[in-house]
């Protein structure tokens, strides 16, 4: 039943991604609107599937690869919907939504069955720590995509040769302002995620900080974003340079999330 809801959400995401792609090529208003409603439907169905799983499992469903990827995708599409309320960024849909769809398909590679929760994770800190961390990471993922787009579009305008991207996607200023917003939401979430994690570690493992690879890498990530904020506010870094740092920051997140789980191991490798 749960998997069926999940598939419905995936279907809606794909539908939405496809219509945004078609909209990008033919720029037809009704197709854009259809894409928007498909995204709304996908988000709510996906949300229902996560809530459903929460009640089925009796704990926050962010405890294995399937659940994590699915929740990560949910955060991304939710944040994208939020951004859509202030910016005219339908054209970004054809970049964000394929990624959301891929994340969900990727999630399906892993076993979807609910297993009993390992004793270490049985804590009220689980939902708090994971939700904040995932939200922060999802926001930075969006800013990662926006930054890549910014760098391509900026290059086009500077080189004056072709305008493939800059003519179709939001203006440089809009992209930069989205980046700024991602920074000002993502960073607090990430910070709270790390602090709550540390407190939880204090309860669960008896030490607030034990230089476990995941902890180390999330600290590195935090430092990268802190530098970014400092440079933006104090020195006035904006545009291209911010975009490069955003990309660096996200690569660090990627390493924290995947590299540590798959390559190094450590206290966090539950999944």
């Amino acid at each position, binding site marked *: 039943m749960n998997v069926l809801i999940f598939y419905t959400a995936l279907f809606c995401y794909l539908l939405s991604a496809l219509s945004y792609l078609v909209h990008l090529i033919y720029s037809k208003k009704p197709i854009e609107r259809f894409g928007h409603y498909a995204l709304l439907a996908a988000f709510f169905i996906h949300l229902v599937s996560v809530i459903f799983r929460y009640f089925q499992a009796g704990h926050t469903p962010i405890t294995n690869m399937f659940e994590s990827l699915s929740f990560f995708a949910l955060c991304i599409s939710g944040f994208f919907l939020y951004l859509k309320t202030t910016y005219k960024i339908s054209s970004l849909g054809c970049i964000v939504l394929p990624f959301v769809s891929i994340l969900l398909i990727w999630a399906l590679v892993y076993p979807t069955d609910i297993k009993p929760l390992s004793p270490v994770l049985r804590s009220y800190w689980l939902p708090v720590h994971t939700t904040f961390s995932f939200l922060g990471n999802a926001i930075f993922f969006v800013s990662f995509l926006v930054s890549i787009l910014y760098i391509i*579009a900026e290059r086009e*305008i*500077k080189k*004056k040769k072709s*305008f493939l991207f*800059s*003519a179709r996607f*939001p*203006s*440089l*200023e*809009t992209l930069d302002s989205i980046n700024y917003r991602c920074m000002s939401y993502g960073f607090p979430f990430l910070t709270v995620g790390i602090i709550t994690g540390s407190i939880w570690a204090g309860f669960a493992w008896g030490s607030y900080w034990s230089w476990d690879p995941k902890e180390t890498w999330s600290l590195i990530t935090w430092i990268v974003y802190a530098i970014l904020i400092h440079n933006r506010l104090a020195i*006035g*870094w*904006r*545009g*291209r*340079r911010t975009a490069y740092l955003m990309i660096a920051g996200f690569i660090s997140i990627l390493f924290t999330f995947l590299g540590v789980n798959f390559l190094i191991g450590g206290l966090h490798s539950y999944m």
Partner: protein
Amino acid sequence: MQIVVFGLNHNTAPVEIREKLFFAESQIPQLLNTLRDRGIEESAVLSTCNRTEIYFCTDHTDESLAAIKDILVSVFNIDNQALEKYTYTFKDESSYKHLFLVASGLDSMVVGEPQILGQVKDAYRMAVHNKTTGYLLNKLFHKTFNVAKRVRSETRIGYNPVSISSMAIELSKRIFGELQKKKVLVVGAGEMSEIALRHFKKEGLHEIFIVNRTFGNAKKLAEEVGGIPYPFENMSDLLAQVDMVLTSTGAEKHLIDAGLIVQVMKKRKNKTLFLVDIAVPRDIDPLVNNIENVYLYDIDDLKDLSQKHLSDRMKEAEKALEVVEGEVAKFSLWLQQSEKNPLIAFVIDKAEAIRLKEFKKISQKLKNADEETLRNIDALTRSIVSKLIHPHVALIKQDSDREISEIIKQLFTLEEKDEKDLDNRDEGQ
């Protein structure tokens, strides 16, 4: 009746002749009256800097053409041979095909330019005002507006700008998005500055600064078009404030060099600066483009871009031609039918006029309605009208002794008289 167009355009006549055969807006009513006096039943005059054309409907084409040539010869003092040499005459299908092409911008010097549709609308409005349009021209022009709209929405013919200042605006939109709150500085007070200034105004920019070496000229331009004149010495202060700069002066050397912009960018805290230099020789050092968050386009960059956009438009023009040809075929069919049985055309036209009037009323009332709602209402009214009309048309077609036709005709003419009462009743409800 035959639909005919007689005229000249930028392809057939050089600018000296076009200048000569130009009707100012104030002259057109008189011309329309003269044409009517000479027995031409319906006429409209389109006169722009690239074309002068007279569209008319008549039963005596040759006499009318002779009369028009007569009038032109006497008004403009041009000899008959020259007139023959530079003008063209299209009749029937090729005449309305020509109008469709003109209104869609396919016959323009800059393919796809949008102003021409407005000019065609003006030509029609003036003809309506002078009561020189009738059943045929009304139908033709409404159809034309329809075709032009279809061409705009179904092809990308007008998608990429080709004029220097509209390209500057398009580029700034790619950098800044919304322009209304942006500040712009115009350096120079010449003709190009004026054109650019008008374009910026049209885009809704209201903080426009003008500097010029001779302050008086900046002031004069500001008074004529709008903007805030500033002394030339304050230029670097302004550079730190504005988002966009357009330079077009006759200066021999660079007015703005890289060193100045580096300083300015520090003051601006790296806020993006977009510079357009359309002067020859250039006003801004090309090295400025290498500075972070600064974008500089000079006249050659814009010309290259314009060339590319123009060739894009040419590709789209082929698609547009298909649209036009389809519509020409439809219009021909409609003409044939209306000739065979004028009453059917009369009834359909009458009903359409009522529908349009009512539709206009409701769309004015529903100020907040979006495009889709209006489109739905439009479709709904169309389908109601066509269902109501259909039995009448069928009856007219079957009618051999013209008895029923006469009744239907009266029915629709009577309605004309009652319309006022109906309107009053509407208001009362």
